[in-house]
């Protein structure tokens, strides 16, 4: 960590933060609530390296694993590390992509993610097998299972492992700052952490479909 986070931001850092917040809002459709913490922790140059590498990693992962799969892998990396913000936001993005492309809802709604957040590792994989049991979920289940195995110390070997290891190390780095909000934030309040957040029409359709899918009396997602 190149800067002491308890120090106030200097004038130049505050200006740079405003510019980054503006660019983020234009690109993503919302202002990420972690930019200030990243500036405090990493400094301006450190922030540029951190956010630049994260953007590159997201592109590489999407090209290597698929657009939706990459978002689920990133989300589960963040969730495993303890960051509810990264977990909910990237899995939300993965859910939106699946809904946009296949018009289906995955089993990974916010209530399920909250449950997984408190599930011991020894039970998590069995729970994911229950949730992702449809034939079309096989690829995603395989990736997340392998992600958990690598996290537990398995030796890399499969074709996808290099991508999974990139997600794990990159979100090790990312969650160092996002954890300041990632512990308490309600999952349902986290936007999809990609430019899909600007697609209001898709967000509305998805939200309506989720509402329809819930049985009466269920907790709201």
């Amino acid at each position: 960590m190149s800067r002491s986070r308890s120090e106030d931001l200097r004038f130049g850092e505050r200006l740079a933060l405003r510019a980054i917040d503006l660019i983020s809002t234009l690109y993503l459709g919302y202002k990420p609530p972690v930019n200030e913490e990243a500036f405090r922790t990493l400094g301006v140059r450190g922030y540029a390296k951190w956010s630049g590498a994260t953007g590159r990693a997201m592109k590489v992962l999407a090209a290597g694993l698929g657009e939706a799969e990459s978002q689920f892998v990133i989300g589960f990396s963040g969730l495993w590390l303890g960051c509810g913000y990264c977990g909910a936001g990237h899995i939300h993005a993965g859910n939106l992509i699946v809904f946009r492309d296949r018009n289906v809802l995955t089993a990974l709604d916010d209530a399920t993610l909250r449950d997984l957040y408190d599930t011991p590792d020894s039970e998590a994989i069995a729970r994911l097998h229950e949730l992702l049991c449809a034939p079309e979920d096989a690829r995603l289940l395989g990736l997340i299972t392998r992600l958990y195995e690598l996290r537990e110390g398995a030796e890399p070997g499969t074709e996808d492992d290099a991508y999974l290891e990139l997600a794990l190390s990159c979100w090790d780095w990312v969650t160092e700052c996002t954890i300041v909000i990632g512990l308490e934030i309600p999952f349902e309040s986290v936007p999809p952490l990609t430019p899909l957040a600007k697609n209001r029409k898709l967000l509305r359709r998805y939200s309506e479909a989720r509402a329809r899918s819930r049985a009466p009396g269920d907790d709201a997602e």
Partner: protein
Amino acid sequence: MAGLRYRFDRPDAPPPVVRVDLLESLDDGHEVAILAELAAATQGSPTTVVVGLSALTRYDPRLRPFLLALQGQISGEGGRAVYVADRPRLRGVALWVIHMSEDSQAKIVPNMAAALEWLRITDERVSSAEERTLTRLERLEGEQGGRR
């Protein structure tokens, strides 16, 4: 203080290591007792402390301020801490604590085997994650570029 809510242990090897396992939610008395017991065990010298959170079955909001105090005591003496937690939310609590403490040496692992492995190495958490990320990213970008 009723019942066993934590366990304090000083394993023989590899020294100097102290292990504190939290078994259930603590009250003020337990928290004070743990900090005092730790001070007595370390005698002000840099010590590695393994903090076990895996026996906790739920997140108690009191845990964060207590771990912050514990972390402050460990790093204040020049020691390092490794947190063992098998639930994501509790790993998040530990990450929040070590981030707020600005302790780059502290680590979070999912099980005791990983903690024992970590005891053998010296690792700077954030720069290690950065280095691993950039190395993997460059390799994969190179491979993807080569395939185009």
